[in-house]
């Protein structure tokens, strides 16, 4: 099969795309024909999933295509200049980048590493992103963002120095009264969702069993996805046991799995969230096994993709990793939990959640709070709060939620 080039694209090239993605590509066909082959599949990977993308993602792709289409040929060549200096192997170029852009990108990545072009690709991508962002400043939200992280479920006491990385950013409260803290935080999120209803604008992610919070908040939980996780792991195990597996075969398998294959709803209303949840399990590393990894990655992906106004992430104890001697002695139990290790995982994850929130528009006005569940330690970060401060004055979670903005 000879390599297809972008200039050969026709409307029929996208006949296997879902309806909205197909429409988008056909509308921008003239532009797509002009783009360098190294960049085009990156855009097609978004387009082929367009029907199941979050509103923020669709908007970004629309704007990006409009931006590129609005450039003169000279301007476009200048903005995309870095990509034109990268070379492709004939094998990668022959990959079906139209119908399986993700597979093409995997092969491209391997090729770029092997040919020592990864740094050039990074530079080209950064230059393009900078030009596009300069021309399209991020849209400000009508409300300040709020991130909440709850860590330490099941830990009675610890000497681990919590929130070390976050303390320089805000106020570390050491005497917080929170007798019904989780309920307080859930109510706060629910109230924001009711006051400012936004599609996929308010999230609650739980590393264990999700509490009730209402339908206006998008809810994802590790426990809720247990059937899907089991079904997916069984599929992967089947491929491994077939003896023909390698990383590529497994990646291909995972790319082909559909929500309904692992018991997730696929009807129109649920499709966007089902695809997102499936991606957490197929694209995340460790999310199928460790609940702390699942919660951190889910929060990261929700912030990156949906760009919500509110995120509440609650960590739960993950399963314990048995040391080798216990495994060999046969004393292991797969159900044993590790609350203390999970607290350390969640502490780092709280920092990452803050970092990911800060990458979104309105970062200078965003608020963030992390609470050691059922204890009296809170780190609060907000535009009106000082940095690197410790407060030993008595406070309640409700008060901190008002001070934080």
């Amino acid at each position: 099969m000879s390599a297809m080039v972008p200039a050969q694209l026709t409307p029929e090239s996208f006949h296997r795309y879902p309806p909205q993605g197909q429409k988008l590509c056909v509308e921008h066909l003239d532009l797509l024909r002009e783009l360098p082959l190294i960049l085009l599949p990156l855009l097609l990977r978004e387009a082929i999933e367009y029907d199941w993308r979050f509103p923020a993602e669709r908007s970004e792709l629309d704007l990006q295509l409009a931006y590129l289409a609005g450039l003169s040929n000279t301007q476009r060549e200048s903005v995309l200049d870095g990509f034109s200096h990268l070379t492709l192997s004939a094998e990668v170029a022959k990959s079906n980048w139209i119908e399986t852009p993700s597979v093409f990108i995997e092969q491209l990545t391997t090729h770029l590493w092997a040919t020592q072009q990864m740094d050039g690709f990074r530079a080209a991508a950064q230059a393009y992103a900078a030009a596009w962002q300069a021309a399209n400043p991020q849209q400000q939200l009508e409300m300040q963002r709020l991130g909440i992280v709850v860590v330490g479920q099941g830990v009675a006491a610890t000497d681990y120095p919590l929130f070390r990385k976050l303390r320089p950013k805000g106020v570390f409260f050491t005497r917080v009264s929170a007798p019904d803290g989780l309920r307080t935080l859930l109510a706060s999120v629910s109230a924001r969702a009711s006051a400012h209803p936004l599609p996929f604008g308010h999230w609650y992610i739980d590393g264990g069993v999700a509490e009730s919070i209402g339908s206006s908040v998008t809810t994802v939980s590790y426990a809720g996805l247990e059937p899907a996780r089991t079904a997916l792991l069984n599929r992967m195990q089947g491929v491994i046991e077939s003896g023909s597996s390698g990383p590529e075969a497994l990646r291909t398998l995972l790319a082909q799995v559909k929500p309904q294959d692992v018991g997730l709803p696929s009807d129109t209303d649920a499709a966007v969230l089902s695809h997102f949840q499936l991606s957490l399990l197929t694209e995340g590393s460790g999310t199928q096994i460790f609940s702390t990894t699942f919660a951190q990655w889910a929060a990261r992906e929700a912030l990156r993709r949906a760009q919500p106004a509110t995120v509440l992430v609650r960590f739960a104890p993950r399963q314990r990793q048995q040391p080798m001697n216990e495994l060999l002695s046969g004393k292991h139990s797969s159900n044993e939990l590790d609350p203390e290790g999970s607290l350390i995982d969640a502490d780092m994850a709280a920092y990452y959640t803050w970092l990911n929130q800060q990458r979104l528009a309105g970062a200078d006005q965003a608020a963030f709070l992390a609470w050691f569940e059922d204890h009296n330690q809170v780190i609060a970060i907000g535009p009106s709060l000082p940095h690197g401060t410790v407060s030993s004055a008595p406070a309640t979670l409700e008060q901190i939620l008002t001070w934080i903005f």
Partner: protein
Amino acid sequence: MQLRDLKTASRGEVSAAVAHSRREFLRAAAGVSAGSLFSFAPRVLRASALRPEPKAVVVTFGGGARDEETFAPEGQENIPNLVQMLFPQSTFFAQVVNKGILGHYVATASLATGVYETFNNFAAVSPHNPTVFEYFRKDLHRRANDAWVVAPSNGFNRIGESDHRAYGAGLGAGVILPKHLLASSMSAGATGYDHLLRDSYEAPFYTPELAGNEVEMQKLKDLLKLSVDDFSAHARSLASPDELSVYIARRLMREVAPSMLWITLHDIDIAHSGTYSMYVEGIRRSDRLCAEIWKAIESEPEYAGRTTMFILPDFGRDSDTDPGGNGFQHHRTGDPLSRTTWMMALGPGIRKGVVIDRPVESIDLVPTLGSLLGFQPRFAQGKALPEIA
């Protein structure tokens, strides 16, 4: 430049800032006087005529560790042995850059050949360029048992020997994969060890084809005077695969005493599972095991006073600030922090408590070993480090 400014810095500035951070930290942590630092001069000439044949032990971490968790001030608590015990005896290269592929097998192969290898990280292939073991054995006419590799099992079975036509077959190192030995030593039908014996944290469900000059259990029994029962029993007393690797390495040192011993540790790479606590635990274990290996070198008559030890991660991990990554979990972005690491060298003739902060490359290791041991790595692309070689 401060580390917090790295997001807007150039690659060279980032590497330099990392080196500066490590240097300042080491100076403070180890109490080494400023006057003994930052020197750049050939190493002290050794009275080689009076010395026995030199040996080398190379310890790599196949699962890089970042500054935040190691040589930055906040990471100090994780590496007490490296900082307090080993650094004062070492020359420390604070800016070792890996410009190759950031996958553990291919990167470790690059360390061993002195050339940035470009094969598929997950393929069961030999390095394409001659390995340090082949140079060592061919140039110095060494017997097969004088070069050994102890490594994790994710494809490393072929690392001992290249497919280069001028070297290759029969000239490489023996390779011991302790986890595979453990699997083969288990009674038939034993199950439940999949998690322990899995081959790669980078691709946890991948099981590479095994073929190469990997040592089998029966040969090991003869070589190390270690019965299957003793091996299995000892494995039951150890907490991690890296502890098993060091146990085997020490046994090799005692029974075979190879002049070239390469140990690749891998516990740190549990970071790919996204569990920060386990990643830090892996760093602490590696720190402890490095000290244990050095103590073994100092206490074994065949090694004491004649052995140079190198310790280096194969590369770093992604920074927290690169939006393309997920912090410590992976090494996929190719950002400067994931490419910049460090190396420690200690042994006779190596200056102590010295920090070298000029940039060097990870492929400089093989030429440096060649200079120290007296072989010619003619296809290696790195350069011998004059500070120690």
